[in-house]
């Protein structure tokens, strides 16, 4: 027997996932335009692998396959995996990344809604440790034509130094290792654009546009992006204010690497993130702070993935300690 409520708002998991995919398209379009259409090939490979993996695992688990495949959550995971990988990684790197995300991180923990870690971030961390060279080949904006990209993705010979430059974060990192280095000198490198990496900073703008759409549709709340941006920008501003020749500006940090993708699409993952309003602020701020520290003082140029996983571990505690007061208990608990 069906009980009340008898009416429901027309909303669905598939609708949410579809909107997330839609919100990613401006960033992807600019990506393809600025860096090359190779990213689209990898997106396609990842989507197919993700859907097949999802179907096979659901089958093995004896769960309804059709419902799970049609909810589009696997495609969202696949796209996020690809967007945080370099666009010209070989197809099998993409495949391994997606399989780690879908099979190991999502389904081994119980499937949709059950994973304590962000699937795309685990995939990134696993592969940057397993294949540090392949995972660091970021082509400069407009540096490679589509045919070259395609042959690289499909397993062509790789002449690494000839085809890839450093990303802005890489250039910053290696540049600052020199004894007499200063930010202004390093920023002369042609990897840099106005704010962050040349070309890449425009992709970040695309992600922001998509993120604002998600905010407008009420699919994400303001807490996570705002806390992440303030935390990352804030700590960068402090270091920059103390020693502007040693540390890059906050704007550089926000416009580089995956900062904007993370702000609107990664930290906002509802499954592995904190859920209470205050918890969301703490979670996202923690990611921002840790990401900055790893970028500047850690072993990897981009620290967001590790920062997210570290904060994922804190989520149960954060949620437990930040439960909002219930109706009638707001003034310090009257009971």
């Amino acid at each position, binding site marked *: 027997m069906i009980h*009340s*409520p008898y009416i429901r*708002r027309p909303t*669905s*998991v598939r609708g949410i996932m579809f909107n997330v995919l839609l919100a990613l398209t401006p960033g992807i379009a600019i990506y393809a335009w600025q860096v090359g259409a190779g990213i689209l090939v990898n997106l396609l490979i990842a989507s197919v692998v993700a859907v097949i993996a999802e179907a096979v695992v659901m089958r093995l688990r004896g769960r309804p396959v059709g419902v799970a495949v049609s909810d589009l959550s696997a495609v969202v995971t696949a796209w996020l995996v690809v967007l945080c990988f370099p666009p010209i990684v070989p197809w099998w790197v993409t495949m391994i990344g997606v399989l780690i995300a879908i099979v190991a991180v999502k389904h081994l923990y119980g499937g949709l809604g059950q994973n304590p870690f962000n699937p795309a971030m685990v995939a990134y961390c696993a592969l940057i440790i397993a294949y540090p060279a392949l995972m660091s080949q970021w082509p400069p904006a407009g540096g490679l034509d589509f045919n070259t990209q395609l042959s690289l993705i499909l397993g062509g010979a790789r002449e690494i130094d000839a085809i890839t430059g450093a990303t802005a974060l890489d250039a910053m990192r290696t540049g600052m290792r020199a004894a007499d280095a200063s930010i202004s000198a390093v920023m002369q490198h042609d990897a840099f654009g106005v704010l962050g990496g040349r070309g890449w900073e425009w992709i970040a703008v695309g992600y922001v546009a998509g993120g604002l759409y998600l905010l407008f549709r009420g699919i994400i709340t303001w807490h996570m992006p705002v806390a992440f941006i303030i935390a990352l920008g804030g700590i960068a501003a402090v270091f920059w204010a103390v020693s502007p020749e040693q540390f890059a500006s906050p704007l550089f940090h926000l416009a580089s690497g995956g900062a904007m993708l993370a702000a609107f699409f990664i930290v906002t993952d*509802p499954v592995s993130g904190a*859920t209470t309003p205050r918890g969301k602020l703490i979670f996202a701020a923690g990611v921002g702070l840790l990401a900055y520290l790893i970028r500047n003082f850690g072993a990897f140029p981009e620290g967001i993935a590790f920062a997210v996983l570290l904060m994922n571990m804190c989520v149960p505690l954060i949620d437990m300690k930040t439960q909002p007061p219930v*109706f*009638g208990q707001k003034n310090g608990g009257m009971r």
Partner: protein
Amino acid sequence: MRLFGFHGGVKPESHKSQSANVPIAPLPLPARLYVPLRPNTRAVAHCVVEPGQHVLKGQRIGDAEGVLGTAVHAPTSGIIADIADYPMAHPSGLTTRCVVIEPDGDDRWIERVPFDHRAVDRQTVLNHLRDSGIVGLGGAAFPSHIKLGAGSGIETLVLNGAECEPWITCDDRLMRERAEAIVDGAGILFELIGAKRILVGIEDNKPEAIDSMRSACRATSLPIEVIAVPTIYPAGGEKQLIRVLTGIEIPHGRLGGEFGVQCFNVGTAHAVHRAIRHGEPLVSRVITITGNVERPGNFEVAIGTPIEALLAHTSPRADTDRCILGGPMMGFALPDLRVPVVKGSNCIIAASPKLFPPPPPELPCIRCGACARACPADLQPFELYWFSRSRNFGKAQEYHLFDCIECGCCAYVCPSHIPLVDYYRFAKTEIWARERESEAASQARERFEFRNERQEREKAEKAAKLAAKAAETKAKLAQQAGQEVASDASANATGDDKKALIAAALARAKQQRSTVQPKNTDNLPQAAQAEIAEIEARRQAVGTQNPDAPERASPEDEAR
């Protein structure tokens, strides 16, 4: 006036226009009325009529019983056909005792005498309301005289005309058509609780009702204000409306009276007006019949009218598959259409698969938090869902499961189509069942312990009695011996030689025992030995070391 919001809430399509423009119409009496002798879920009325008896409209058929009891009256004149168990308007379909009345068609009232509530003391007025069967008409049917009895310190009387659930229009129509009566009833309630102001909260999707109530208010000198509140379900929840109008949040388990505010439904104010000004007990109410019917509308219905009789009057369409009592957010599908209309019934929606399609399959929760953003009780519904689902009821209670008002907002917005409220109902009933079980267990334990204690006590009493008897015999013997010793002295009789010998032997044995008894003080230094000897001597003097002293039979504190 400044309004206060409440967290969350949803805006479902209202569907009110179907029935909102149909004036309240009387409904012809059915062949039989089934009047439950249960004015609310926590009280039963004591039946004062017999089968075969003729009753008049408004004649009392059930007396108020218990604290939460109110009287029950015949809704029309006729013959009592039966007093038996019939199904109730409850999701369980359980039965309750009903008085079955066959109307005689005259609909003849008892003698109705207006009640001058100013001429008598407060308690008399409250008793009159109780005996007029006045309960809250918003749905819970809570006895109004109890709410009014809360006493002094009430600042604000809130009149609830929000009617936030979709489809329902009975309060809307009542306010449009009988605003003066409502305002007059509100004035009586206002005097009874000694409030300083009346706030009438009406959702702003009912402009006609707001206008009508405002013009009725202009005709009185009461400090009454009609306030249009934003249309957000569940703004008509008592605690939500109080929050919107006054900013006061009443926590779970507390009553408005403790915070200086008391809330009544507009229908209740109307019923109070009828009971005081016209001496009419509550025997009918306005109910909306809508949904999948040809002629939706609002009807003045005698309490006890079977719902199938109501439906027949509005011609449900062919594909009607069930009927929902109440609104679509909090109502329930009736298990049986023969159940009678009761004082808390406000709406019947004929449902069809097209109108209320079955929910899509339940998917896993993705913790999106939509439910938390919609919850008017500021809960984290998905956490409650996880805990209820895993039967972690302790944790569910820790996360305030019982603060949930079951308004259905969370399930309404859930993208995974999880019937969240069902999980909470399940958890609540499981917790209640466990509480009852543990209560029963502790009662059984108490009984067992008491039985053990009683047996112990009886044993002790018996022993005491025996000891007393033994002492008595001993005393008698001693007395005899004394007499014999006395006679011995004079007569020097021979018969007691034996006894004397025994006594001498006993004395010897006793002395021997005391000397042979091992003492752990032998190796002590002389000073300590001396001290012990001194103590022993003192003890001997007091007589505490007497080993023959009878033990106390039973401690007094065991007596119960």
